[in-house]
């Protein structure tokens, strides 16, 4: 008798797929494609300082010289000639939601951003297509010397030099083709500076909404957490679905100072026409702590592997991630840890779920350099297959160059265990409830790391409906 499978519903995307009808006259759009003229036009629009103008053009040269990756999901359908790299809503950035145009404000209202700001955030940045439309930081947090602004304003203000010193130094344009693309056409994003010894107790959040069809979003997030400081930063992203390809090639650079701590949480829920080719990297100094929490639910294709460089002695990093790949999705996600300092440690813990023909790949790299004496690293990746139409791969790489290191790795791929279902049933739990518990519990180690309201959102995203029985 055939086994009837556990059914897991698709993620309910109605919240993210809605959009208001927009007129072209509400936006300034640069023409499609990628040329030096287009890059210069972006520089003009953004009034870039000369070093940034030069930087963009050099990055464009690198882009043209660099080939696309020969590994990972196929992105040959992504045609840059059809992508609009800059779309600016005809509004200025405001620190008051009332000054934000009605339809844009309503979009963020539906996504719950103003409400979250009132309830549980110390500051919010909201980006609509290529530019921020709202940015605000609580006065008491600003009074501690914390800077949280859009990156363009900071570039022209007193932190301009600091940005020049750090901008694309962790992720140089030569890193890969889409880092070069980002360097050429970046727009929007946030700059955060937390001064020495300051603990920002309530999280900051940036939310990126890509609303224009056929557009790209290239926001740059630069966070510097100075010595002994602490921050939790949350990033959210979504877009409505179109029939044409959209592209997200953002870049996140995080500098974690001596004895500092940064937690960076992401709920990524791009639409299923999105190519998400994002690059995130952190450098951690002595005794610093970097924590990544990542939920990848959306996009058509994702390449996402946040990298942590443990440069200082005794630096630590953790990556906790969940990936849910449904129909039409090919999500290639994971993490990279590079140990340089002595007594450094890293831990990667991921869960992947594949269903309805979705492809989920866990890909990682743990590198322990010769000078990283007494480094420790542990990796645990588990994948759950919910039907035989889907696919799940794990491709973890480990490179150890000293004997004074301890590295452990474990990976497991399978479906819901019949034994586990039987065990729970033997203790009086009905079969459907038992299976529901197992699937929920599978992602629990990740969801419990999220702030409460996001954990609830994630649980809503993975809404389960159990039917049938094991035959």
């Amino acid at each position, binding site marked *: 008798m055939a*086994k009837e*499978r556990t059914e897991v519903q698709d993620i309910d995307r109605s919240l993210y797929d809605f959009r208001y009808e927009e007129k072209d006259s509400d936006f300034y759009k640069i023409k499609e494609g990628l040329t030096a003229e287009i890059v210069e036009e972006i520089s003009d629009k953004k009034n870039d300082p000369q070093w940034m103008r030069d930087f963009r053009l050099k990055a464009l040269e690198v882009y043209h010289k660099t080939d696309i*990756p*020969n*590994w990972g999901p196929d992105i040959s359908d992504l045609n840059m000639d059809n992508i609009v790299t800059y779309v600016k809503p005809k509004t200025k950035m405001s620190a008051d939601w009332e000054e934000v145009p009605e339809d844009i404000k309503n979009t963020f209202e539906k996504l719950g951003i103003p409400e979250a700001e009132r309830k549980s955030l110390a500051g919010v940045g909201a980006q609509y297509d290529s530019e921020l439309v709202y940015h605000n930081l609580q006065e008491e947090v600003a009074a501690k010397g914390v800077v949280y602004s859009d990156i363009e304003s900071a570039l022209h203000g007193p932190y301009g030099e600091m940005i020049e010193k750090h901008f694309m130094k962790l992720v140089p344009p030569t890193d890969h083709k889409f880092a070069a693309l980002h360097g050429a056409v970046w727009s929007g994003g946030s700059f955060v500076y937390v001064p020495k010894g300051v603990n920002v107790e309530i999280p900051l959040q940036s939310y990126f909404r890509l609303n224009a069809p056929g557009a790209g979003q290239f926001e740059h997030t630069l966070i510097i957490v100075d010595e002994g400081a602490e921050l939790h930063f949350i990033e959210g992203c979504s877009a409505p679905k179109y029939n044409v390809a959209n592209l997200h090639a953002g870049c996140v650079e995080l500098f974690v100072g001596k004895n500092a701590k940064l937690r960076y949480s992401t709920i990524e829920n791009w639409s299923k026409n999105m190519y998400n080719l994002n690059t995130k990297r952190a450098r951690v100094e002595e005794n610093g702590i970097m924590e990544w929490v990542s939920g990848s639910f959306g996009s058509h294709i994702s390449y996402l592997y946040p990298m942590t460089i443990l440069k200082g002695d005794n630096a630590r990093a953790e990556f906790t991630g969940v990936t849910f790949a449904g129909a039409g999705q090919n999500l290639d996600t994971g993490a*990279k840890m590079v140990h340089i300092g002595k007594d450094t440690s890293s831990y990667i813990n991921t869960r992947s779920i594949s269903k309805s023909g979705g492809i989920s790949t866990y*890909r990682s*790299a743990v*590198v322990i350099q*010769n000078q990283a004496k007494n480094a420790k690293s542990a990796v645990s990746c588990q*994948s759950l*297959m*919910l*039907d*035989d139409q*889907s*696919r*799940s*791969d*794990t*491709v*973890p*790489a*480990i*490179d*150890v*160059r*000293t*004997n*004074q*290191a*301890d*590295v*452990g*790795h*474990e*990976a*497991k*791929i*399978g*479906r819901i265990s019949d034994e586990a279902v039987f065990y729970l049933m033997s203790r009086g739990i009905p079969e459907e409830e038992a299976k529901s518990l197992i699937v929920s519990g599978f992602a629990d180690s990740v969801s419990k790391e999220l702030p409460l309201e996001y954990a609830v959102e994630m649980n809503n995203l993975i809404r389960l409906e159990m039917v049938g029985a094991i035959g």
Partner: protein
Amino acid sequence: MRTEELIINKMPVPTFRWLKMNESKIKIEGAFQSFTPEIEEEATRGEGDFSRVVSGLGEELAGLAKEDGCESTGYRIKKGEAKAPMIMHFLYESKENQHSSFCFYLEEGAKLTLFLHRESEEKAEGSAYLQEKFILEKNAELNLILVSKFGDAFQSYDDLSLQLQESSKVKLSAIHLCGKSAHIGYRADLLGNRSEAEMHLGYFLEKQERADYNLLVNHFGKKSESHIYCDGVLRGEAFKIFRGTIDLKHGAKGACGNEQENVLLMDDNVVNQTIPVILCDEDDVEGNHGATIGRLDEDSVFYMQSRGMDLESTYELMAEARMENVIHSISDKSIQAYIEETIRGKGKEEE
């Protein structure tokens, strides 16, 4: 003289290019020439169609040897034949591109124990390429033992590919004491339902020795099983890369693939690269991988020291134990004893 630059040991699925782990590049200078080993208890020669048995190292290298006119010797083993282990002894001298190729066709229910002993003279310079192909029909069983021990300046290529039909089984025990460099490509296609591959691999590398492994097990058959155990020791400035892939194909319902690698790093200038891949295109399967890489764990060290053993002796003992794991997987006691004798003293000779 012909010089060919080739790519071998290519991963089925590549990953980040900056790691430089996706494949290996080699240079072959000059033509391959046939090398004939000494053979004891030779099985019956015979033919079979091996055209669909894909090389473990890569078809490019295999094709080059064929171009040079190197022939393969075929064996056909019937049920009830070949009761005593067949032993092939390869003692290489200083010569480049020595090549041997053998194809074994195990008919339904046939059993074969094959012991391949490859070595070179201690001061020998040169290279040797061994290619072995196996087809196991229904219920056939192959017990394959391989030991290689080469001189410091010797390079070797070890190419093994297997096709397993219904309920057939292969048990492989391989120990590599590598010499200058060893490229090892093993591939098993578990075509038949309930076919099984059990592989025990061990290596002990020292000085500037390099080992380049690429293992691939393709699960096509329902309830097929694979178990890969790899135990290794790295000393001096040794380098090792281990690529191990379990590919659970669509339709291989009930299949199970397990892989465990343990690497003991004994000196500070060793390099260990590991990339254990599980590819899964079927839900009713199980794929597991585990790896431990590094020095001895503190509990083991404390236990041994509390019994009066110093740290250096503890490491020596544990390094030997890694090889013992592989030796004990060999069921033939006489071969076990022979191998223990052959590899004894590795790591101590220069002290």
